[in-house]
């Protein structure tokens, strides 16, 4: 009797599910934080609060770099098996 449990490689499937879910949530969170940082930069700079403005801009920049690094890492992992 063939069962579903024996036909499916659950370890690979769970790894795939975890990798897809974690990377999508991380990517969206980091990008949203970056957008928040740049939006706050506009607000603070219009109010003349330059320290807070530049701090927010730095958060936006760091999030942008982290996003880029995540994309490059993902493609690198795929290319190298």
């Amino acid at each position: 009797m063939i069962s579903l449990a024996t036909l499916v490689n659950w370890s690979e499937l769970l790894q795939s599910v975890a990798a897809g879910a974690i990377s999508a949530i991380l990517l969206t969170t980091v990008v949203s934080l970056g957008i928040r940082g740049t939006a706050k930069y506009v607000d603070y700079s219009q109010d003349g609060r330059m320290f807070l403005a530049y701090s927010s801009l730095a958060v936006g920049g760091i999030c942008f770099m982290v996003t880029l690094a995540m994309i490059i890492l993902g493609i690198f992992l795929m290319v190298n098996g």
Partner: protein
Amino acid sequence: MDAHLILIIVVVTALAFDFTNGFHDTANVVATSISTGAASPKVAIAFAAVLNFVGAFISIQVAATIASDVVNPEALAGADALNVVFAGLVGAISWNLITWYYGLPSSSSHALIGGIVGSTLAAVGTGAIELDGLVGKVLVPGVIAPILAFLVAALAISISYRIVNNLRPGPVNRGYRVSQIASGGLLALAHGTNDAQKTMGVITLALIADGTLAAGSDPPFWVIFSAASAIALGTYSGGWKIIKTTGTKIIKMDTAQGFASQGAGAAVIMASSHFGFPLSTTHVINGGIMGSGIAKRLSAVRWGVAGNIVTAWLLTLPAAAAIGAAIYGITVLAGGGTVGPVIISAVSVVLIIATFIRRARRGAPVAAGHS
């Protein structure tokens, strides 16, 4: 000479399928970018075509699954092997064109696998079907992936809304609009990675069944290059009617939802490609779109249209399998050899041209957001 001619017909048919796959799936890749205004239709489609091409070179795990884990190429060898692959491809192309004609974003991948399984069953019975590969690598991941994309997109958009809550909408929308260029690019790359490999896998299956390649071989470079080119050309040619269905009829999206659905779809497809699961990119992307819609409000999703799409999904495997089996039957009635494939190819070309003319007479499809 006969064997070589059939092999050429199979390769050309596989590349034609790849073209229709790109043509059919353009909507999945670019609809969200277009419907939220992140990119113009022309730019989005050209960008997607280039990244489809690049994506095809990233990995060969899915090609390996199609070439040896769905049907056993050695069991096919000798039993009109090339005619079996040819019939499966015609079954998939036929179903792709039928669903394109009616504007339903069904799965090209399931059409391909259904077509190949149907023609194999008709030719050699269940003995050549790799049940563990079909169930474990195609059917189960095929069910899980769109549900995962749905849940991940719903969670991602909820987190995004919390993070940008209370901010002025102008800068936020601009930010997500720019981010959608990246997420749309990733989705196109993921689509090329998973879908172009299916054609590579089918051509490799034909080359193994024909004895040109040894069992377990990877696809040669010319196969990878030609499959990448065919899907990129198909994507560039676009499928405007399906863009309209996917981009505006399932939900009305804002830029954050577009970004979340594309990000979720790209991540799920790329992770699955890495493990060799030949997913339906259509299922995954539509799952992501619905997930990002339901997180805002239940009524944002137009469930009637979504229901029609699910119906098309359910029909795809059996319908493509039935057409594949019927086409194989015709090649047998034609006496095997090259006669059947040559006649079917000629009739198919005439039918495809007639379909395009009829479609054009019904009026040029309209891009999303422009209707």
